[in-house]
């Protein structure tokens, strides 16, 4: 294995026992995944394909039942940091204290954590809001703070769990473009989970397509669109072709619902 991998997963498997029936369910089946240092990779798939579960396994929130995950070691601090789906900011902390919290978790004294967190508030475009409380922020601004909290710990890899899913369509596009700007500035490896095809294509170097029951990888598509990408790229035929290709993959693997099976 080469040294410039940010993440290397081998045979990651997640098994549940269904509480009602007692049957064993395979949420994730033998997922292998390598991510090069500095790459932006999306995990794309329908709900129930285990993409968020995989992300939580990488983060350590969930323990896999089999397999192995290696993250690139960093000199100090954490290897990975999570950007959550709902911003999950603490309502009792100011924006600055929320952004500093990841550092506090890593054992950095609160004062120093605040000093180190401050530049990331600027980076995500929240200057002037450091002393505000989460309820004073819009949904998009909360997600910016959520992102800043993960960036501040300066991990090797950033794990993003459908961070824009709860935003309205316009705000989501603004945040996608902002994420690329920040990614370009911070030069981080990103593993981004989403169920939106256009989001995955627009952001990523590679889109890893997953299918459900059991959750598994069905395709790994390199997105060969020039960077930096403006939002206009979404209107190009090349972009549409990628969307089409991925859409077909997902259609093929979809489990038909009862209604669709009826004659």
């Amino acid at each position, binding site marked *: 294995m080469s040294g410039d991998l940010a993440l290397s997963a081998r045979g990651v498997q997640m098994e549940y026992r269904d509480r009602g029936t007692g049957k064993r369910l395979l949420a994730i089946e033998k997922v292998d995944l390598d991510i090069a240092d500095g790459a932006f990779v999306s995990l794309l798939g329908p709900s129930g394909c285990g993409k968020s579960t995989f992300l939580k396994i990488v983060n*350590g929130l969930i323990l896999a039942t089999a397999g192995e995950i290696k993250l690139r070691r960093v000199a100090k601090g954490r290897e990975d940091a999570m950007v*959550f789906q709902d911003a999950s900011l*603490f309502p*009792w*902390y100011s924006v600055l204290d929320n952004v500093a*919290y990841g550092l506090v*978790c890593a054992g950095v004294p609160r004062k120093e954590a605040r000093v180190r967190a401050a530049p990331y508030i600027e980076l995500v475009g929240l200057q002037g809001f450091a002393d505000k409380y989460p*309820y004073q922020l819009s949904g998009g601004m909360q997600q910016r703070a959520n992102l800043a909290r993960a960036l501040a710990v300066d991990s090797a890899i950033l794990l993003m769990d459908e961070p824009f899913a709860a935003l309205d369509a316009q705000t989501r596009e603004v945040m996608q473009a902002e994420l690329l700007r920040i990614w370009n500035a911070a030069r981080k490896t990103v593993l981004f989970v989403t169920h939106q095809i256009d989001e995955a294509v627009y952001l990523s170097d590679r889109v890893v397509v997953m299918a459900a029951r059991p959750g598994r990888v069905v395709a790994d598509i390199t997105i060969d669109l020039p960077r930096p990408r403006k939002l206009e790229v979404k209107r190009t035929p090349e972009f549409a072709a990628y969307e089409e290709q991925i859409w077909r993959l997902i259609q093929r693997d979809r489990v038909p619902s009862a209604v669709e099976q009826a004659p």
Partner: protein
Amino acid sequence: MIARRLGKVNERVFYGVLGFVGLALVWEITANLGLYRRSLLSHPTAIWRAAVTDFGNGSIFPHIALSLQEFAIGFFVSLIVAIPLGLAIGWFRRVDYATSALLAALNATPNVALIPLIVLIAGIGLESKVIVVFLSAFFAVMVTTSAGVQSIARRHLEITRSFGGSQWLAFRTVALPSTLPFILSGIRIGAGRALVGVVAAEFLSSNQGLGFYLGFFGQLLDTSRLMLGIVLFGIFGVVIGELLRVVERRFEVWRPDIHA
């Protein structure tokens, strides 16, 4: 903005006072019209005269002082025991299992029923009243505190774990602040219960205190002094409520509903 908030507060005080004055007026007028026996319900001017007399010669002060003392000691001790215990029960599942049945049984027993036993053991002095006040407030504070810890949002606890923070850090930075509103409402409920405890204990066995005062004069059919005692307890309750409101505002700058 300050002016508007001040306006709101003034409005609250204004109408609050108006309500009291209105009630007193109706009371006074109906008593003077002879709609009921004045000796049974008394009326505001007679209560006022009783207040002027008993405050003037100072005879009521020892009663007030003793009741305050019983309340303060009993309530304070109950807070410093109930809050940590409630936190422990909420945070550690095993502590919850070990104590819940026992505490539920104790809680289900009306603690007024325990007063004769407490008096038997601790006498009719300050100690027995403090114990009654303690028991009266204890469960309300403890139960609300532990319920508060158990209702912490999972997603908030997940943040600390995700960033590799310790359980102790999660307790300090997540459990404590998100439980604080519950603790404060527990204190509010507990303060009311503690006040009931003061009256009940002094009623049943005492030779001093505001509860004794109103019980004693009730038996003498001196309803003006009986009513004075009731009014003083009412004022006491309102003052405690307002003090707690100040504390709540102080602690909860992050809650939008408090700023509204």
